[in-house]
């Protein structure tokens, strides 16, 4: 009896909050047929927006992967002063509003900001251009790889690494042959989350983007310019990517749990 009660609450909740919106995307996009969808998707603006999004993601994800693994190794295996601070700092982007992130970059790299002089002097534009957008994306998607890898590293323990050392493997060899294979599913899961975050980032990037655009910014732009077809088309594509991400997560997760 109780079981069905909980089940109804749970599924009902999910139906209202999740399933509704999901089906909406489909309906609204194809409300007027396939052709407006295709046109909206393939016009120059949309393509450019997607290009930017992909470029930013292609830079941010590898950076955060390397950083995340290095951080996780330092947090779990080493002891150094300020470790607690590093640990908390890695979690910071999760609790921070993207607007605050965007604003701080705006203040830092914009006119009158601390770093403005450094870059302007060399003719490099940070704010209102790709670099700032990349930095924003890197910051907001910082934690994911590290947070996934840390518990896995902890669980494995370092005996395998010690064994490798006694067998003659150098630090680097041990990392490539022993540590990395052991954490690979956690890394993959973290990379998938990082990618999803980068693709979907809006708030921080919006503030520092200026006239540049990304897929997410384009959705807002289209909507406010009454180009509903465009807005929904891009949204559908982004939603489809999100679903793919979910599938990827679903596939990566069981491996993690049975390890």
């Amino acid at each position, binding site marked *: 009896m109780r079981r069905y009660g909980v089940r109804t609450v*749970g599924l009902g909740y999910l139906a209202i909050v999740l399933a509704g919106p999901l089906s909406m995307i489909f309906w*609204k996009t194809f409300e007027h047929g396939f052709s407006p969808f295709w046109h909206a998707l393939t016009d120059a603006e949309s393509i450019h927006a997607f290009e930017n999004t992909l470029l930013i993601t292609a830079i941010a994800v590898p950076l955060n992967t390397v950083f995340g693994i290095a951080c996780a190794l330092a947090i779990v295996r080493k002891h150094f002063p300020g470790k607690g601070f590093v640990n908390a700092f890695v979690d*910071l982007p999760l609790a921070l509003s993207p607007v*605050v992130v965007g604003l701080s970059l705006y203040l830092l790299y914009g006119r009158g900001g*601390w770093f403005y002089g450094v870059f302007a002097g060399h003719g490099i534009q940070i704010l209102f251009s790709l670099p700032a957008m990349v930095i924003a994306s890197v910051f907001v998607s910082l934690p994911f790889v590290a947070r996934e890898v840390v518990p896995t590293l902890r669980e494995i323990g370092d005996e395998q690494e010690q064994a490798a050392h006694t067998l003659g493997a150098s630090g680097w060899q041990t990392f490539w042959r022993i540590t990395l294979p052991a954490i690979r599913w956690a890394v993959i899961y973290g990379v998938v989350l990082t990618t999803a975050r980068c693709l979907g980032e809006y*708030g921080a990037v919006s503030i520092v983007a200026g006239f540049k655009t990304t897929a997410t910014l384009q959705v*807002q732009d289209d909507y406010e310019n009454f180009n509903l077809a465009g807005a929904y088309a891009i949204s559908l594509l982004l939603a489809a990517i*999100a679903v793919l991400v979910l599938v990827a997560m679903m596939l990566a997760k069981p491996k993690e749990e049975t390890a």
Partner: protein
Amino acid sequence: MPIAAVATTSTHGGAAGFWDAVSSPEAVAALRLSLVVAVLVSLANAVLGTATAWMLVRDEFPGKRVVNAVIDLPFALPTIVAGLVLLALYGPRSPVGVSIAYTRTAIFMTLLFVTLPFVVRTVQPVLHELDTEMEEAARSLGAHELKVFTRIVLPNILPGILSGMALAFARAVGEIGSLVLISGNLPFRTEVASVFIFNQIHGGNRTGAAAVAVVLLGVSFLILLLVGAIRRLATRHESA
């Protein structure tokens, strides 16, 4: 990157300027709205999220694996897309016949969507690890179901619920992407803190924006400390 934090604090034209900016009626209204809605959403999540987690861990039904994966949808979906879709769902010309866009209810519903995964995902592993033998022992000692839940299960999953709530709160307070379209930005009525900052930046009022941003920053730090404290409290029982 820590400089990002420093930078925000640097620009508010002096302490007096800061206070003025923060205590302007619009800013106060925006902050209040953000905080109140965030609290409500966290509470809703605590109850509904726990129920969902329970269902996923303890119950078996066809398609469970899919449902489990779908929980993460708000995590994976770009926030602006979520906002757009929810606007279509609840706004004018809505298929469901509801028209609450540009209202506070809309903000609540949107944030509920966005924060859905948090409590569910923090409670799930705890529930999973929970030794059902404890519950069986309680039953054999004569406790009836509700008692078993409140006295045995709840105390053990409470840290999970609390940290999920804290994360949901932090997310709700700072959320921008999904709200930018739906909330309508009516100052004093539906303008949340994050949107307020957004508007201030576009309006050139850096001081005002920075001031409110500092408040949000403070909230974020508090949340982080809270989550850390909860984590430490929880593991206290484990390292026996």
